[in-house]
């Protein structure tokens, strides 16, 4: 018995030689990949929207631009849809984020596969974080990449159409690249990743908790809280709070709205110093911690 009890820690020890970092990042990496395998809409939906937008651009905008001989009009017709395409792709990614989050911790319980996932050495924390990373990182960055690709194709088409008409290529590309590259990335990180994080945290928590009708459970409590407040106190602080959060907080105020204004100023310090950001992130952490705890207790439904 004595030799056996010595043998155990040794065999565990040989496992432990593998770097701790590897033990953390590998399950995380594969869990995120698993999410992409399961939810192909994560990339198919924004790609489909991009394809449709490009198709429409080819037919409508280029067609219209060719029908006019006025260079200024032609250029306007070709440039106008950039912002529209951006907004559509971002909107698709945002919708996918919402539906993904509502399903993330629910579908594995519904199809009983949670029993398989729990039979593997992956902690509940890793699982919840990998699922949270989809709306918080993967989708915004993916949307960014698709927007850049789509608008670049549009720019190439614009350049081809306007070639030889005396319009400077630099004048076409510079504002567009600035808009997409810098402003869009900034907007995605500040608003979609950081400012909206509590929304996704809430949706993931509901998906870990509700046995069915996740959408209703996600929507009803906020409506109920706001409604009760209005009836009891005749105020609407809660709805105002939600609206402020949804509208994008301090960033939305400085960035007007879509399409992104190329002349706007980045105000990261103002954003980073707003207490709303940090309170929101704290609430997100709370929601996710609750989701981790719930997943530990939950089995198939």
């Amino acid at each position: 018995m004595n030799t056996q009890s010595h043998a155990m820690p040794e065999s565990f020890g040989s496992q432990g030689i593998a770097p701790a970092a590897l033990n953390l990042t590998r399950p995380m990496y594969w869990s995120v990949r698993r999410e992409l395998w399961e939810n192909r809409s994560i990339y198919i939906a924004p790609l489909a929207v991009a394809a449709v937008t490009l198709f429409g651009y080819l037919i409508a905008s280029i067609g219209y631009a060719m029908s006019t001989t006025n260079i200024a009009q032609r250029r306007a017709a070709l440039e106008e849809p950039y912002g529209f395409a951006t907004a559509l792709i971002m909107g698709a990614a945002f919708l996918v984020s919402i539906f993904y989050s509502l399903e993330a911790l629910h579908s594995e319980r519904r199809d009983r596969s949670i029993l398989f996932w729990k039979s593997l050495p992956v902690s509940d924390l890793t699982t919840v974080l990998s699922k949270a990373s989809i709306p918080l990182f993967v989708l915004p960055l993916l949307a960014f990449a698709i927007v850049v690709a789509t608008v670049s194709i549009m720019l190439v088409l614009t350049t081809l159409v306007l070639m030889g008409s005396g319009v400077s290529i630099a004048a076409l590309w510079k504002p567009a690249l600035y808009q997409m590259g810098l402003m869009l990335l900034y907007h995605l990180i500040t608003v979609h990743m950081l400012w909206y994080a509590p929304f996704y945290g809430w949706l993931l928590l509901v998906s870990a908790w509700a046995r069915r009708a996740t959408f209703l459970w996600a929507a009803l409590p906020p409506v109920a809280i706001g409604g009760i407040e209005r009836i009891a106190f005749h105020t609407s602080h809660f709805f105002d709070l939600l609206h402020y959060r949804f509208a994008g907080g301090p960033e939305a105020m400085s960035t007007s709205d879509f399409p992104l204004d190329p002349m706007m100023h980045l105000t990261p310090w103002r954003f980073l110093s707003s207490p709303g950001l940090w309170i929101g992130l704290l609430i997100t952490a709370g929601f996710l911690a609750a989701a981790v705890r719930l997943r530990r207790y939950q089995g198939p439904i």
Partner: protein
Amino acid sequence: MTVIEAHGLRKAFGTTVALNNIDLRVEEGRILGLIGPNGAGKTTALNAILGLTPYQGELKVLGRDPWNERDQLMRDVCFIADVAVLPRWARVSQAIAYVAGVHPRFDRAKAEGFLAKTDIRHTSRIRELSKGMVTQLHLALVMAIDAKLLVLDEPTLGLDILYRKQFYDSLLNDYFDRSHTILVTTHQVEDIQNVLTDLMFINRGRIVLDCSMDEFESRYVEVMVHPEHLVAARALKAIYERQVLGRSIMLFDLKFDHVDRSQVARLGDVRTPSISELFIAMLGDETGNQAGQAQGVAI
């Protein structure tokens, strides 16, 4: 080495007691069958061992507390909980890649080797596979993991007898050695009689029988009584009697009935009972099992 050790393990759902102060000890290299009627507490016991449900009392699996250390424990423990828990949307290749990605003890070549013996294609989605193939796939994944403890909860439910036989054959031939420990529950008791090294009956949250198969064979004896010895046989008070083709078959517990083998052998043809016969004898009446009562002692 003790693989599972429980003292006073208790679990209640509201007023229903699923596990009632269970003491349990499973040593390395055993194949333990946990047998019990529906609702006896089998799955609850397994869930506690696997860290899927909180419990009261003391429980150590491979020296760890399953509820608080599930993810570390799962490096050394594998389980097939019920059939068809593999994600239906995944492709076979994805399931293999994922397990290979997250499990430090998974041997991919071994899994591929097991799969090569089946008709399962890597490009198939799991939802396209038959129930038997899903079980084969799950078994291939699990057998390719060098785990210390394998837990099987109704692994062959709904499979035909060929798949069931093949399942336990591969488990014994390709997987089991004295460094592995297997804990299995099933209602298809006859499938595992020759597989087990240890047997445990559980009923209403309590363990009602805990013995090795060697002990089972020496302790329980079934006699097809010659009609002329019937009265003498009944005087020995068998734990169970049933009628087959007009002959009485009696089951004796040599340990508690104060009879010995030679005494019983004089009454008729002696053989080792099947697990299911002992199960019916011990639990049939108690659980109100219809089959048990119909074949019961009353004549």
